[in-house]
């Protein structure tokens, strides 16, 4: 009998945890990089599905994190040596997203505890995998901060607190801007629901960012047939040089 009850309890616990679920919709799940690509906006909206009534306690908060493909990065610091500024110390970051945008329904430090941030790697400081960085240099943390600062200035990283609208603790919506200097790859949109600083539900969706048309063709050609691509570049250059010369001679003689 006791065993049966324990089993019931065990079965009930996950159900308790998944009491609130995200139902998500994206305005588009594919971003096409065309020749005139000038950035993109993605509308992320959805609802919170519940089997029971809204639980009591602090209200539900929503965090949306959109991250691009990860890659290793080297951060270098300049130092004055013999009168000139040269790259001196360097720190390797094992993996950092090339794009990372976070939108929240409230101040980050109020709606997500540090432990939960660490576990779910939500804030950009946590999303960067800097394992081993501290062993490379004493002030490695400064290098990581600098990397974040540089990418923030470059519109690659952003944190927008309070731009996720939550209605009736059930509906939410936000818009994330993607800059024109996007790289290709699979972007992941993560939606986290938090209550009192704790994550109660999470949902992931993939957004495919791809070059299309001419961009796709040229990119593939340059990687798969580099020799042909090089010759084509030269042919275009020589033709352009010749035609400009010919046109100007016509103008002069005509």
């Amino acid at each position, binding site marked *: 009998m006791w065993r049966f009850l324990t089993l019931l309890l065990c079965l009930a616990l996950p159900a308790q945890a998944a009491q609130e679920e995200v139902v998500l919709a994206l305005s588009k799940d594919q971003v096409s990089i065309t020749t005139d690509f000038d950035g993109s906006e993605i509308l992320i909206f959805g609802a919170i599905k519940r089997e029971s009534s809204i639980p009591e306690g602090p209200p539900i908060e929503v965090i949306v994190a959109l991250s691009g493909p990860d890659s290793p990065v080297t951060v270098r610091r300049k130092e004055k040596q013999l009168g000139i500024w040269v790259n001196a110390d360097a720190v390797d970051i094992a993996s950092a997203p090339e794009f990372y945008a976070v939108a929240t329904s409230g101040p980050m430090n109020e709606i997500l505890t540090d432990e939960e941030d660490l576990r779910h790697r939500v804030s950009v400081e946590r999303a960067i995998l800097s394992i081993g960085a501290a062993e490379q240099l004493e002030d490695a943390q400064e290098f990581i901060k600098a990397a974040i*600062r540089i990418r923030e200035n470059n519109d690659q990283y952003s944190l927008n607190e309070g731009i996720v609208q939550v209605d009736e603790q059930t509906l939410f919506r936000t818009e994330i801007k993607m800059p*024109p200097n996007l790289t290709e790859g699979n972007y992941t949109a993560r939606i986290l629901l938090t209550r009192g600083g704790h994550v109660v539900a999470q949902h992931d969706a993939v957004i495919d960012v791809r070059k299309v048309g001419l961009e796709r063709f040229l990119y593939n050609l340059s990687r798969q047939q580099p020799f042909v691509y090089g010759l084509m570049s030269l042919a275009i250059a020589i033709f352009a040089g010749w035609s400009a*010369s010919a046109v100007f001679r016509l103008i002069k003689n005509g």
Partner: protein
Amino acid sequence: MQIYLPIAEVSVNAFLLLGLGGLVGVLSGMFGVGGGFLMTPLLFFIGIPPAVAVATEANQIVASSFSGVLAHFRRRTVDIKMGLVLQAGGLMGAAIGVVVFNYLKSLGQVDLLVKLCYVVFLGVVGGLMFIESLNAIRKSQKPGAVTAKKRQRGWVHAMPFKMRFRTSGLYISAIPPLLVGICVGILAAIMGVGGGFIMVPAMIYILGMPTKVVVGTSLFQIITVTAFTTMLHATTNYTVDIVLAVLLLVGGVIGAQIGTRIGVYLKAEQLRILLALMVIAVCGKLALDLLLMPTELYSLGDSGGH
């Protein structure tokens, strides 16, 4: 109008690129330099990744030089024989240069070395040209002073394998032009430029070629070396952005045509003093970057090789 560059993976204004290409093209046509030493730093400035800027610039120089050299061929101001000797040296030099470049890259600090190369060579070349052409102008303004047409009769004339370069009116050994070609080729590959700004003064002061044929011959030589560099970059680093190159070269070839025509109306001394001033200006800017404390001490790079 914004345009997305497929290889550089950034979005830039198409008219900005056309304008930059045109401006540098005018200078290139006037002075017989590829313009790479101006364009490459400008491309860094508008946010093109350095590797792509250097490789694409090589491709663009092919176009503007080709456009320029045709005009010179028609005016018979190209010493083809001299050009071929220089090209032979240039290709050897470019191959050596790429090896040196990759070696330096494995040591790290390649950015610094490229910049130091720029500062040293631009400074020396610009300074020498400036002083020399200033003296020439002063001399020509003195009434009654005979402009002594004294050819250097130094080590250049004491070497074997003499060849006659009819267009330049020279009878010198083939070794100095070959060496000049190699040196320029090495520097061109390391600095990511055509090398005209070194080639032009080397031809005037070391080989003693008449200024009239220097520009055309330099352009003729640059085409081969930059075409070779383009292929090298396209096949090894995949960093030639053809969309960027087309935008730059459309502006560039038109500019080069205009520049070649302006160049005809200027005296050789004036041309040289203008080129010298420009070279010194770029050198000064780069030197300041090295000497003054940068606003951002940190920089990001691809992982590995530091």
